[in-house]
């Protein structure tokens, strides 16, 4: 039994095409907490996810918005930090930063990004996160300098400062990425269907994150556990994921307005009830 005690969040995972803005508006009106978009810029049929996020943020009022997850090799940390903070300011603190090391190296290369091996991808991500946080930190006037293997920043001015503490949520599956998530992440954002043994895998994967967090002197609960649900969601299943596996963010993949509304109106309240009863 693991429960990190976070409030539950419910959201959708939307294909970044022409219908995505309407689906974000639907999710917002329905009262969901979160709408997220996958990021595959090399896929010609898809829109640019960052542009879509900014557009959707401007068309919605309350809902939080995140990439799920943004492709780091195509979105350099300095650009990303500034864009995310800007949108957080404009949207009144509604932006979260779902981030991944970037799959599909050939697609990345085709769009002019650097082709990285999986190991390089992880190294680049652990370089990028401190740069992003540094640029967000306007508590000091000192300029940001970073000479890394993947990223160079010289004398960059900090800012803008985000309107709230933007969570960096990491898409991770393998040990090294899980360790990075525990060390540097504010959230973990995998997809249930990619876990080797489904939900049962979560115990072990959570433990790896917990361990890395503890080693870095952090509370395991400082890493929120979110989960993409690619094949539907039922209240009992989600309540079990929350109480047994510590999942507190449920993101349902759907491009359907009715399903989005049902998630908000029926499933989310039912799960909240079940979890509340157990947590007491």
């Amino acid at each position, binding site marked *: 039994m693991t429960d990190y005690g976070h409030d539950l969040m419910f959201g959708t995972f939307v294909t970044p*095409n*022409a219908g995505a*803005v309407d689906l974000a508006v639907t999710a917002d009106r329905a009262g969901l907490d979160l709408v997220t978009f996958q990021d595959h*810029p090399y896929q*010609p*049929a898809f*829109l*640019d996810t*960052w*542009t*879509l996020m*900014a*557009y*959707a*943020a*401007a*068309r919605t009022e309350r809902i939080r918005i995140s990439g799920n997850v943004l492709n780091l*090799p*195509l*979105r*350099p940390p300095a*650009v990303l930090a*500034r*864009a995310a*903070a*800007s*949108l957080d*300011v*404009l*949207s009144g603190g509604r932006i979260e930063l779902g981030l991944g090391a970037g799959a599909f190296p050939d697609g990345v290369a*085709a*769009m*002019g*990004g650097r082709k990285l091996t999986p190991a390089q991808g992880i190294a680049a991500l652990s370089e990028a996160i401190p740069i992003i946080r540094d640029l967000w930190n*306007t508590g000091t006037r000192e300029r940001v300098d970073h000479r890394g293997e993947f990223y160079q920043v010289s004398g960059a*001015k*900090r*800012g*803008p400062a985000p309107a709230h503490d933007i969570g960096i949520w990491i898409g991770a599956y393998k040990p090294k990425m899980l360790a990075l998530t525990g060390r540097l992440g504010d959230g973990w954002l995998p997809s249930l269907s990619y876990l080797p043994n489904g939900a049962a895998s979560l115990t072990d994967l959570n433990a790896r994150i917990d361990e890395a967090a503890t080693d870095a002197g952090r509370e395991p609960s400082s890493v929120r556990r979110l989960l993409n649900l690619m094949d539907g969601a039922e209240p009992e299943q989600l309540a079990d994921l929350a109480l047994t596996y510590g999942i507190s963010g449920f993101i349902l993949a759907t491009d359907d307005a009715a399903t989005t509304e049902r998630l908000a109106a029926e499933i989310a309240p039912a799960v909240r009830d079940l979890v509340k009863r157990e947590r007491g």
Partner: protein
Amino acid sequence: MSTEQKVREAETAPGPVVLTDEDGGLDPWTAAVWLAARNDNLRITLPGAPAAVSSDMADKAMDTLTALAGPRVSTGDNPSRFDDLPASLVKFEPGDPGYRGRSSTYMRGGRPALILRPRTPDEVAEALAFARRHPELQLGLRSGGHGISGRSTNNGGLIIDVGAMNDIEMLGNGLVRVGPGATWKQVAAFLDKYDLALGSGDYGGVGVGGLATAGGIGFLSREQGLTIDRLRAVELVLADGTQVRASAEENQDLFWAVRGAGANFGVATAFEFEAEEVTEVGWAQFVLVSHDVAESLKAYGDVAREAPRDTTVFWLTGPPRQGQSVIQMYGMVDSGDADTIIERLTPFATTALLAQQQVVVARYADVMAQAGDVGPEGHHGRGEPVARSGFLPELTDAFARDVAELLRSGQVFFFQLRHMGGAIADVPAHATALAHRTPEFSVTAIGADRRGMDEVWDRLMAKHFDGLYLSFETDQRPERLHDAFPAATLARLRELKRRYDPTTLFRDNFAIVEES
């Protein structure tokens, strides 16, 4: 004023707004997108292209915003390369929003220096005047962007894109007037309301402009003739900018030339076709498996040859896998009667081992509607297509054997026979610039490697053919011109080319050039 204040004010301002890039301030691109979404009428000028890892990513961001909000955001720092652009013309240069989605076509990647998008014949004339002033720019014409032989994109050249001229209008008596930028899917949907149809090809996404100036071998051709045979009048802007109408009554020479070699003579701005009554049709898709592709091909040929005009079935295969060929057939019976449909199609379905079949009664427009729509980013072809074409007078045993060898070579991943005959052959050879009227089939192959493809094609296929359908031919060796146009046709075309396009302005698609 900070960018943030400026953005807050612009959210409700009538516009326009010029964003700046201040150190430590808001990201101008994110601010621009936010504003475009908040204020529907605002025009926004950016201090530069979106910050991004590459120009492709920056272009993608711009194109996304254009798709979501219309072309309301421009970069202040993308001055035109040209100082003599006609001010009224819609244009796209690298870096302009919307450019990326228009740089490639369905089959081909490219990066033109300039795309002009005229909306009227007068604007076409202006675009052509610009083209004449810039002989250094390779000129390509574009309507629906599905060209294969037609280089409707290029690298560093000029594209005149008439895609916006896509009106469709009913003139009465079955006559329909269509702009070159319409797609055949749109034409079919329009005519469907009148229980009419007009044959085009097998793919509804293809544009009117490219197909109706070249031929049009489709599912109704055996009954109605080629698409060019249904053409009653065409309006063109010639190389010197004059606007003409050509029909059986006026400019007969041009009317003749447009029907098969149109891309050499002008930019077609409107077509008037005579459609015919078509209501329900039988639509079939078969997948067959064959261990002897030559035998199956011959059997198909025998059935197709005997088929009545209301029946048209195309044949398609790729390289065999473990000695086994997967054959796809798809075709149409112009009848809504289930028994007739089954009777016509059964012989085709038994030319190899039937693995899957789907036969439905549908509207012709439904069949055309299966083609995908072009997404927000436009076409995304890459590289150069490698396609070869031939008109096959007779599907002989020797041809079938050579096809089997061709397929084994691995050079061809798409090999197709389009069923001809019937009404196509009713038109005399000299009546249109497309003179090859009597083939049994139009044969098309697509490969990946130019040299390898040409080698097997020249060795195995060429001897079986009499001529080629230019729309599917990408080989640019000079002999191909003679394959497309028999001697008498070519002589007349050369004479007309000298008269109407003496500087060979139009040369993106089987350019009629003098013998060197």
